[in-house]
């Protein structure tokens, strides 16, 4: 199942022109600056926004196009809005049951309980919405959407209205939701950090058009796209824990292309993690260094080099299937005579665990 999307929406000055295919599994982040049309796209997929020249096919089901327009309540979606938008006249339980009662064919007691457990809201069920914190309300809203057992989950910046503490509280719940569920998730965000932690794929939106789409790690490191050129350029590496060293508090993680050591709280061997490596923390040597404080030295091939300014350049490095970015001075590149295709060594000063 894939999701074929084609929308042309004109709203005054703003035009949204989308023609893409969204993957069937994993989290696809719809990323872009505010006003780029992210929310409009999500609303059009949900049927909340009526695009006249629209085409939307989810798997075999035609939701819009050829004279068809399936109203929102007949689309098997879960939708989480920016604000929790709980029904103020119903308890938490009432809010969750609202969708379950109307999605009888898909939902079940098991699905309902799973949603409650995943978001950890069992103890809130008897309360009224106004008795909950913003973060708790949003957890209930997510559980309410999941309890209908949707075949697609749409989230419109679910963390944007929350404070930093509450964001940090919810992120782990979202991560476990995505790991447990086998449905496509569309996640609208303008937060680079959230995308790095949660997304598998990305649609890069700007001014109503898709600038790029593909794997999140590719888009973060693609030198022909803007993200790799920002001062906080980074690569995100999916890895799994292969060893944990209690004595030094270091986790060894393996990824497609090598092994890295990162400082971390105790981790279970085999657990999946995401690493964030900032471009400015990666340096390049021609020979593997001995007698250095840097633990992580990975053999790589130079894929591409782009000059950022008179003094700085960004180098894209490939280790097997993993891309790394390195931000170095033009002088160093000149001294080392770096060229595309060279086999060199990347020295990673620090890598941070995102999960």
């Amino acid at each position: 199942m894939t999701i074929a999307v084609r929308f042309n929406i004109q709203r005054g000055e703003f035009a949204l022109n989308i023609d893409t295919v969204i993957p069937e599994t994993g989290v696809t982040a719809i990323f872009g600056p505010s006003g780029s049309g992210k929310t409009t796209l999500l609303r059009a997929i949900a049927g909340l926004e009526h695009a006249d020249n629209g085409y939307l096919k989810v798997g075999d089901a035609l939701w819009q196009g050829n004279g068809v327009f399936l109203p929102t309540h007949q689309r098997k979606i879960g939708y989480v809005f920016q604000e929790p938008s709980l029904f103020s006249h119903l308890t938490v339980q009432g809010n969750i049951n609202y969708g379950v009662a109307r999605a009888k064919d898909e939902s079940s007691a098991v699905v309902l309980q799973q949603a409650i457990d995943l978001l950890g809201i069992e103890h809130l069920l008897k309360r009224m919405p106004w008795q909950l914190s913003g973060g708790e309300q949003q957890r209930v809203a997510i559980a309410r959407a999941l309890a209908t057992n949707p075949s697609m989950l749409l989230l419109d910046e679910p963390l944007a209205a929350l404070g930093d503490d509450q964001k940090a509280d919810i992120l782990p719940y979202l991560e476990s939701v995505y790991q447990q569920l086998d449905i496509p998730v569309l996640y609208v965000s303008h937060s680079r950090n959230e995308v790095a932690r949660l997304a598998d794929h990305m649609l890069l939106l700007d001014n109503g058009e898709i600038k790029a789409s593909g794997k999140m790690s590719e888009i973060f490191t693609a030198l022909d796209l803007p993200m790799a050129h920002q001062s906080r350029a980074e690569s995100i590496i999916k890895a799994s824990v292969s060893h944990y060293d209690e004595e030094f508090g270091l986790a060894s993680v393996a990824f497609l292309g090598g092994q890295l050591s990162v400082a971390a709280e105790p981790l279970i061997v085999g657990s999946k993690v995401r690493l964030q490596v900032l471009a400015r923390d990666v340096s390049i040597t021609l020979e593997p260094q001995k007698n250095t404080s840097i633990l992580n030295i990975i053999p790589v091939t130079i894929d591409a080099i782009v000059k950022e300014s008179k003094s700085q350049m960004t180098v894209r490095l490939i280790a097997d299937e993993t891309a790394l970015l390195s931000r170095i001075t033009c002088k160093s590149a000149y001294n080392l005579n770096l060229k595309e295709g060279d086999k060199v060594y990347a020295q990673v000063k620090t890598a941070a665990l995102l999960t």
Partner: protein
Amino acid sequence: MILSEQDLTALFVTLKLASVSTLVLLIIGTPLAWWLSRSQWRFKYIIEAIIALPLILPPTVLGFYLLISLGPNGPIGGLVDMLGGAPLAFTFTGLVIGSVFYSMPFVVQPLQNAFTAVGQRPLEVAATLRASPLDRFFTIAVPMAKPGFITASVLGFAHTLGEFGVVLMIGGNIPGSTQVASIAIYDHVEALEYGQAHWLAASLLLFSFLLLIIVYGTNRRYTVAQP
């Protein structure tokens, strides 16, 4: 017996008129208010102005036009006559029709405000939770607009209770059928029966006051519960 039988009947007719009118107003006013709160129609304001007319129109003017249109040669009366119904002027049904027009703004405006305050979002959420439009209206819009319904019912009821001019014009002051308390009081005063006028007036005053006490008390509980 302090209140005469005719006075009691007048009170009873008043309460019956207010109850029936409020019920009819809620049935007509709810969809109307919903439409007004949701419609993007550019000439919507004309409808709003028509509904608000009784707020500024002298009741006798409204009553006069109603009398003419309810009469056998008027558009409404003529239609009823054609369909084989009894004439409406000087009947209880005629009073209800008059009251519905007269109290319309007091019911429609609070409802419209309440529906507007509910906003689009809860209904969109309900749609994503598989609720059909009608389902959304009854399970989300109406319960969330509950304070508006309470206000609308009370204002509609209370305003009908105090009606005088319209009733006088189209009701004709027939004891037991169209004589309401406010007119009975007027009759007593005209006949210099101040004692009876006092009792009837006091009954209406007490009843209205109690009604408002109950409503404001309920509304207060409602707002205190949701800081």
